[in-house]
């Protein structure tokens, strides 16, 4: 026989488990990304810096917890537990009756919606700990009501409300005010008529005055923003939907005492299934279903772990669906992963290309999304360094920025600068070990060349200096850099990358020129299939009679013959159609034909 208390526990346990699984499976990329964009340091200065703004304690604890998102499964568990704790505490304090159990899950659903709806805004967030801030904030707000409930006498309760608002505001910001409103409403609903006016007046005055009082004391924030301290701020133009879960969450905590009161008084007809369905629908609507963004975030994580295989697998698994066109960032991740595996000439054009626009109201430049990663891996540490600083100026320092700034400094030989960033990372939990390893490289820079982390980058390292500007156009800049700025003593690895990028450009003369350089520097035993396809295609275009001299594979000769035949049969083909794709979608011919059509 299951007791009521066991039933209560189970009631929260099941959604918690579902949430954990959901976050771990569908949002692990997001979880990992949020961690990489955050920073928590075990130093007193860091605490003082956080406490200098209203809501500082909340930000500090949230950042502390965010570091555990480093391990996405543990992070998902921590998020699920925190959200469940917020829901559980809420239902206990406000007394939502068991007949309306589904209502008890509302805080959990709203907190989840706020998180999973972030989408591309995850790249633009201006404050840290966003995954935990609202949950911890509402737990704090509930604490205010809990304490209010336990006190006897209106004078004591009013005194507590005043003290709470003034003292909790600098620590919890907006959520302290939610706590005041929630407690005030609780007192109003459950108190007698005589004291209602007093409670309401006190509540409104306290909420109106606390931010102003602290503005006068601290003077470190915009007065109008005082009431919304620690309420997330999304970029202008991003629309209101991002705010909806947060607004509903705050509203829920304010009206929860009223709802609980009405439910206790009214008929207790069981409505759980309907409410549950509504919550599920709500969550479905808000859950970010952008497969490309999810893929980008998962690729970002795999990229950090140098799991090149996994990146191509994610790309393949996402792009194999006709209706999912890859974004340029996905293509860039895939290309670099293939380069690292030495498979770019064999597989790059067998996988589908794409250029789907970001599904975001505010366009996030690729330089902000992944500039530092690509610049570092393509051998431009100066530009990596620059984008670490640009990103930091906009959204604050993060583990990721510090790591890349340290790596870029190491590769550029700025060892003092590298030490600076590494010494900061030494104050973190999950990056301390990495920082210590890198610090040893600053003491023995000759070991950098042997380091697994850098050995593939060093042959591409930019040695010639000139002034340039990427104008936030990452892909074009990298392509132009490799094609137009080839150094005289370029390494075989450099020519490999340059040839690949020349193939992507689709310029026959350029490709043939780079192909010769590639052959003379790399001396490949077997010419990668795509390059054979490109050469046979370009040679055929120039009616080169010496094609037979090239050591083409039989498969390539056959596919080229089929391609020529197809083109002759379909002279009126305006753009590569489905049939063409069916036969040649995995060849360079298809890529080139598509490129011609686009141009």
């Amino acid at each position, binding site marked *: 026989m299951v007791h009521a208390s066991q039933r209560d526990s189970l009631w929260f346990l099941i959604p918690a488990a579902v949430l954990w699984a959901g976050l771990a499976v569908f949002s692990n990329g997001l979880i990992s990304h949020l961690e990489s964009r955050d920073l928590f340091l075990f130093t007193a*200065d860091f605490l003082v810096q956080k406490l200098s703004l209203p809501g500082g304690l909340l930000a500090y604890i949230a950042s502390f917890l965010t570091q555990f998102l480093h391990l996405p499964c543990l992070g998902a568990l921590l998020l699920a537990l925190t959200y469940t704790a917020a829901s559980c505490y809420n239902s206990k304090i406000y007394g939502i009756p068991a007949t309306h159990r589904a209502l008890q899950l509302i805080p959990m659903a709203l907190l989840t919606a706020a998180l999973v709806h972030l989408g591309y805004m995850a790249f633009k967030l201006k404050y840290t700990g966003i995954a935990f801030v609202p949950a911890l904030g509402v737990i704090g707000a509930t604490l205010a009501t809990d304490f209010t409930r336990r006190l006897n006498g209106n004078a004591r309760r009013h005194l507590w409300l005043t003290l709470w608002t003034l003292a909790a505001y600098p620590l919890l910001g907006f959520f302290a005010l939610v706590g005041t409103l929630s407690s005030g409403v609780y007192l109003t609903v459950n108190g007698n008529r005589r004291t209602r006016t007093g409670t309401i007046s006190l509540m409104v005055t306290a909420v109106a005055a606390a931010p102003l009082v602290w503005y006068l004391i601290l*003077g470190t924030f915009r007065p109008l923003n005082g009431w919304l301290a620690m309420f997330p701020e999304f970029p202008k133009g991003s629309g209101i939907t991002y705010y909806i879960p947060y607004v509903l969450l705050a509203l829920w905590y304010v009206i929860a005492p009223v709802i609980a009161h009405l439910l206790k008084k009214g008929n207790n007809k069981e409505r759980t299934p309907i409410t549950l369905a509504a919550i599920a629908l709500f969550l479905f609507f808000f859950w970010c279903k952008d497969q490309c963004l999810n893929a980008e975030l998962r690729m970002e994580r795999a990229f950090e772990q140098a799991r090149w295989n996994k990146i191509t697998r994610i790309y393949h698994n996402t792009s194999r669906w006709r209706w999912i066109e890859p974004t340029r960032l996905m293509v860039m991740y895939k290309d670099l992963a293939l380069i690292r595996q030495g498979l770019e000439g064999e597989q790059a054009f067998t996988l589908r290309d794409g250029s789907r626009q970001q599904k975001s109201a505010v366009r996030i430049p690729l330089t902000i999304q992944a500039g530092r990663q690509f610049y570092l891996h393509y051998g431009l540490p100066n530009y990596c360094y*620059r984008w670490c600083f*640009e990103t930091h*100026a*906009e959204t604050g*320092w993060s583990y990721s920025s510090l790591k890349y700034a340290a790596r870029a400094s190491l590769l550029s030989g700025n060892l003092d600068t590298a030490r600076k960033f590494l010494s900061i990372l030494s104050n973190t939990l999950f990056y301390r070990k990495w920082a210590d390893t890198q610090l040893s490289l600053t003491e023995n820079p000759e070991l950098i060349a042997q380091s697994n982390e850098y050995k593939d980058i060093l042959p591409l390292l930019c040695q010639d*200096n000139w*002034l340039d500007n990427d104008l936030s156009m990452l892909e074009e800049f990298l392509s132009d850099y490799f094609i137009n700025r080839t150094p005289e003593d370029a390494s075989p690895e450099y020519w490999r990358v340059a040839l690949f990028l020349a193939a992507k450009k689709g310029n026959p003369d350029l490709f043939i020129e780079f192909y010769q350089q590639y052959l003379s520097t790399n001396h490949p035993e077997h010419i990668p299939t795509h390059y054979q396809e490109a050469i046979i295609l370009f040679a055929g275009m120039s009616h080169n009679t010496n094609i037979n001299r090239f050591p083409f594979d039989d498969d390539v000769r056959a596919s080229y013959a089929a391609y020529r035949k197809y083109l002759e049969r379909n002279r009126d083909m305006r753009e590569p159609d489905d049939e063409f794709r069916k036969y040649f979608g995995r060849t360079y011919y298809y890529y080139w034909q598509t490129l011609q059509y686009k141009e």
Partner: protein
Amino acid sequence: MMSKGKRDIIVLTVLMMLAIASAGCSRPDAGSAHCEGTPHIYPDYTDIEIPANIAPMNFRIEEPAQRYLTTITAGDKSIGIHGKTVRIPARKWRELLHEADSLTFSISIYHNGEWHSFTPFTMLVTDSVDGYVSYRLIPPSFQQYEEISLAQRNLSNFREKTFYSNTLVQRPPKGLGQCVNCHSFQNYKTDNMQFHTRQYKGGTVLVTDGKPRITDIRPENGISAGVYPAWHPTLPLIAYSTNNTQQSFHTASPNHIEVFDVESNLILYDVESGGITTIQDEPGQMECFPTWSPDGTRLYYVSAHIGDEIMEGGDIAALYNTIRYDLYSKTFNPVTREWGPAQLLYQASADSASVTLPRVSPDGRYLMMARGSYGVFQIWHNDADLWMLSLNDSTMRPLSELSSNYSESYHSWSHDSRWILFSSRREDGAFTRMYLSHLQPDGTFSKPFTIPQRNPLSNTLRLCSYNVPELTTEPVRISARRFARIVKKRK
């Protein structure tokens, strides 16, 4: 109920622990081992000269040990501080400073079961320095910016007060930000001061006789609004450069970014009438960074000749490292407000060098400047060092005693010319920090040291640069809120 036996074991254990602890807390005696040399401490405060009014010189001992003991002796007084991080109590520090002209720091460490003592080092207590330093706190970025503030540090303690922050005005519309820069004071006082806000709610915040307002200092058909300011020491006049500044990024140089002017000249702004006149606008020249002589009868500035290649349409971004600035001056008649002709004082370009940021010592003896191999924004050039021109005998010398492998650039004399405060990236090559050095009677400088912080590791952990450090003898009295209100009113 705890048995007697158990209780005895607990009592015995506690007693043993106390005995071990008291043995560990033993102090180094005359017989303790001696370590060669001075200890490694951060920041390096060994054998320096310090102002009599400086805040406690907290530091961290960078030596591996289990225990640390620092004894500070001044005359008959001495204090002992335990721990790796030496935080000196403010009251005791002040007493020590008043006690003698020299403080001796003796550091002992307990390592491998015995105490070791290092050779003591000293801090000579000399002239007081101006009480306050104002700076721009900025996360060093290239094009993007978000939070920028102007702050003032009381050098006698650790108090830092923000007197303006762009976070205090409304959120700018999409695509706009608000940059804050170029704070400047008249003659080390704060009743007449200025700073600029740029882009959103842009203008120049001017404080005259303690009253703030915001205005637009933009000459008709000029290159830009007034940029780099220099208050006349006594008259209500500000000399500005107006600049068309651009920036581009190095692909491989450790300098990372190149900031350069493509045109610039000098203007004079009358604070009372609002009138703007041209000081210097010679074709083929780019003038910048004006600064007044202490008596206000001469204006110093730097100017670069734009080469024929650029004049004939060459790309200035490609020829950036051929642009070199020389030092000039012009006489000024404070009564008639007439200018004399431009006079070349130091032709740095002849030495394949470029000078910027000239500043004259208030006693009129020296002119200090930043010198690098090219360009005008030396903060981004690792080869930039401070040089000094003796205005008495026109001799120029590199201040090698202040130099490092990284950029030394902005500098500010104390009002009595006894101290120089300058910015340097010597610590890590990326973040600008402030350093103080004492001028010796022979015109050399004492070993520079970084401004002390409550937590000596703050310089490592604070990810902001201290930009344009300016000494003043009094605090900025206008609050950040009041400045923000003024800026908010700007249309």
